[in-house]
């Protein structure tokens, strides 16, 4: 046994060397990309330069975007993001589905071209199917048609959907979906209205 | 000064097939700019086409015609090598004339 391990050593060293080399290359590339981003953009209205700065989640997701996410990194991202989730202070998960439908249809908010005094939208239809009457929906995310009808409204189901809206990376690291609550894109009330769009039996999503 | 038009005129059978692209903003007077100010109306009001001193098309336009208008029509009574002259005039009195040889 011992002999075999010894014979494998040069091979292991090679593998380790290659891995380390990749890490170094990736790190070098990261510095190059960050420096180029800083030099290639300028602030415009609400889109200020600090928007180029990455938090740890964004850094890790960028670093591993082209390959498979190592499980330790995935764990780290989920732990970081799970810690940010705040349930609604009054314990009420469901708002008004009509408000939710409007938020789902609205694509503006946070762009340099948007009015910062107006509430941002969630732009859900850009990626998801929701109501049956809206055929102009995207396919980047899964269909959410009949969301509440299929899942019911048990406390765990509601809490899980709230968590997903609040911080998508809590349970799916490097999700394409924005972290609407954590990043302050949508308010608690807006999130509640979206929850109602998903769960209210009267919502067109469940009709 | 107004930019040139793109005119194509080709004899197909006994008809001349004409396609014209005009460079014009066609401002309706209802649009607002980035600062919220109304952009004053300015659009083509008159288009005419003449071939061999004969008017083959005369049109009165309004603000509902799209920006950079595209106009296609056919007429008879011309031969290859004849010249087709197109003129537009806008609501500010600006005008542009271009000429093309029928192919």
């Amino acid at each position, binding site marked *: 046994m011992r002999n075999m391990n010894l014979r494998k050593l040069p091979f292991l060293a090679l593998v380790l060397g290659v891995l380390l080399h990749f890490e170094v290359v990736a790190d070098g590339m990261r510095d190059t990309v960050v420096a180029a981003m800083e030099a290639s953009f300028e602030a415009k209205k609400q889109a200020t330069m600090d928007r180029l700065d*990455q938090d740890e989640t964004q850094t890790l997701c960028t670093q591993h975007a082209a390959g498979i996410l190592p499980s330790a990194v995935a764990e780290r991202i989920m732990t970081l993001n799970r810690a940010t989730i705040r349930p609604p202070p009054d314990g009420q998960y469901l708002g008004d589905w009509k408000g939710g439908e409007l938020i789902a249809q609205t694509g503006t908010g946070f762009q340099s071209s948007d009015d910062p005094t107006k509430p941002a939208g969630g732009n859900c239809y850009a990626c998801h199917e929701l109501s049956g009457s809206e055929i102009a929906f995207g396919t*980047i995310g899964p269909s959410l048609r009949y969301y509440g009808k299929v899942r019911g409204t048990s406390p765990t189901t509601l809490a899980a959907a709230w968590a997903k809206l609040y911080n998508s990376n809590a349970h799916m690291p490097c999700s394409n979906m924005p972290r609407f609550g954590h990043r302050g894109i949508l308010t608690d009330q807006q999130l509640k209205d979206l929850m109602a769009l998903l769960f209210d039996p009267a919502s067109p999503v469940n009709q | 000064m107004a930019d040139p038009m793109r005119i194509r005129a080709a004899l197909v059978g006994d008809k001349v097939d004409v396609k014209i692209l005009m460079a014009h903003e066609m401002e309706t007077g209802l649009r607002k700019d980035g600062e919220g100010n109304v952009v004053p109306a300015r659009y083509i009001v008159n288009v005419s086409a003449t071939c061999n001193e004969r008017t083959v098309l005369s049109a009165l336009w309004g603000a509902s015609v799209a920006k950079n208008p595209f106009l296609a029509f056919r007429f008879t009574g011309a031969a290859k090598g004849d010249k087709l002259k197109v003129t537009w005039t806008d609501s500010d009195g600006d005008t542009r004339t271009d000429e093309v040889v029928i192919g």
Partner: protein
Amino acid sequence: MKSIYGCIRGLLLAACCVTLAWAQSSTEEAIAEYRAMFGDENPAELWQIRGEELWTTPRGPKNVALAGCDLGLGAGIVTGAYAQLPRWFEDTQRVQDLESRLVSCLTDLQGLDEAELLKSRFGDGAKKSDLEALTAYIVAASRGHTMSVSIAHPAAQAAYDLGHGVFYYRAGPHDFSCATCHGESGKRIRLQVLPKLLDPVGARYAYTSWPGYRVSQGELRTMEWRLQDCFRQQRLPQLRYGSEVAIGLTMFLAKNAEGGIMTAPNITR
């Protein structure tokens, strides 16, 4: 039994696909119909005509035409130049895309002021952009040419690698990167098809059809405009015209589109 279920499932799936395809094709067909009405005409031609005039007319403080402008194939050669851009240029010691190269020519050869030029880099109605018109004219002269970009020069390779890195750079309040929308094929945003820009098929589809006359704006837009508008939607600050990132991404896309046949200037939504 199993095969019957399989059959039914297949039919249901097919029905779903047909519905989706219909929703998509109704929009795309309408655009195709609109294009067909123009025939060979495309309002982009108005920009091409103006661009040709700008290219051949002596202008600027030095009162020269752009016959001395080398787009990579030799001074004054326009035909096929766009299909080989971006590229490394010895005289400027930079990798340049067409737009940044034009800025060099207009400032160095004609003596025009760079800041003034960049003020009108994107046309807006009566405020016309000379750079957009010149780009339209030069790109049209590559119609039918095969995309063939060289990354043999180390700086060109570095630009490509930078573009690749930027493609995955996640930032801003929404965590978006280029890859969020363009990392997978067969996806849509609303009804708009999203090409996967990492693959030759998607990259060719996208790259060879730009610049385009955008019906929704009534303006001709170039790749520099396209990229900065993507970053606006990513909620990031303003991408600088002719910047390292703009050129790097363009190089990345142009190289991925290798072998594609140029059809631009096109007419788009």
